[in-house]
């Protein structure tokens, strides 16, 4: 009775991207500004403070390095899951996506251990500005990781039925979920040195 919304599965002839990809990139642009706001807060508080504790004395750099590697590996398995879909291999896709989700949980686990150590030593956001901005930044990042895990798990189980009906549309969706996941890893790549190493 009426025209369907186009360019959901095929890229737009002029702009060359599907609706979903343009949408996810715009959403990531707003996320860049969100973390940009918090980074500028960190820079302002740090330059304004007369004394700023040295990162690696207060925070556990070993755990954080492991966490960085975990997120990088999960980025790789994420892109591999997309690549195996491009090679029309659903079972490989499921394997890689499962690893990505598991690595996400491992990351959260390590984060929980780190937070546990802090709370035991009575280091709360209220103890000092450094801990406050540490908890806020890593906390918000962790919430984004949780969001990513939920989306990936959806695509691992119920979402993959779409593969039977519209494989190409499903591949695009996985690519968008991948873009989000890589962005979450990218934010951590900046978070890790600014909080832990400097």
């Amino acid at each position, binding site marked *: 009775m009426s025209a369907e919304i186009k360019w959901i599965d095929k890229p737009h002839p002029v702009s060359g991207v599907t609706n979903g990809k343009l949408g996810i990139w715009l959403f990531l*642009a707003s996320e860049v500004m969100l973390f940009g706001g918090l980074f500028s807060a960190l820079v302002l508080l740090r330059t304004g403070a007369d004394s700023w504790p040295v990162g690696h004395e207060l925070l556990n750099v070993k755990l954080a390095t492991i966490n960085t590697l975990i997120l990088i590996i999960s980025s790789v398995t994420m892109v591999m899951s997309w690549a195996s879909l491009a090679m029309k291999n659903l079972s490989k896709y499921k394997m890689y996506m499962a690893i990505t989700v598991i690595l996400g949980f491992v990351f959260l686990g390590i984060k929980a251990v780190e937070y546990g150590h802090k709370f035991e030593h009575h280091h709360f956001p209220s103890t000092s500005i450094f801990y406050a901005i540490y908890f806020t930044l890593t906390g918000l990042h962790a919430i984004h990781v949780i969001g990513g895990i939920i989306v990936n798990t959806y695509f691992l189980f119920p979402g993959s039925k779409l593969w039977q009906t519209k494989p190409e549309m499903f591949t695009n969706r996985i690519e968008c979920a991948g873009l989000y996941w890589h962005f979450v890893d990218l934010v951590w790549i900046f978070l890790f040195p600014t909080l832990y*190493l400097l």
Partner: protein
Amino acid sequence: MSATSPEAVKKHVRTYITIFIALAILTVVTVWVSTLDLPGPAAIALAFIIASIKAGLVALFFMHLLGERKIIIAILALTVFFFVVLTLLPQTSHVVVPIIP
């Protein structure tokens, strides 16, 4: 770029592995650099450069920004510009107290 032919994707897989190795090495390097306790600004600059390289690798290869369409690059360029404006915001906020002779 989404559904490219399987052979091309095989080639991609090799690049993903090399990129992963590069990222892992850079992580270790950035941690090692922090143990050298260089003077403040140098440490910050170096850490920022390494982080930018890692971020660039993830963005260009994993997020397929290499060879991405013009509109996505335009949006990202606009966002990066305003991100820089946002990070320069702290410089504007320091209260400047005049010296009384």
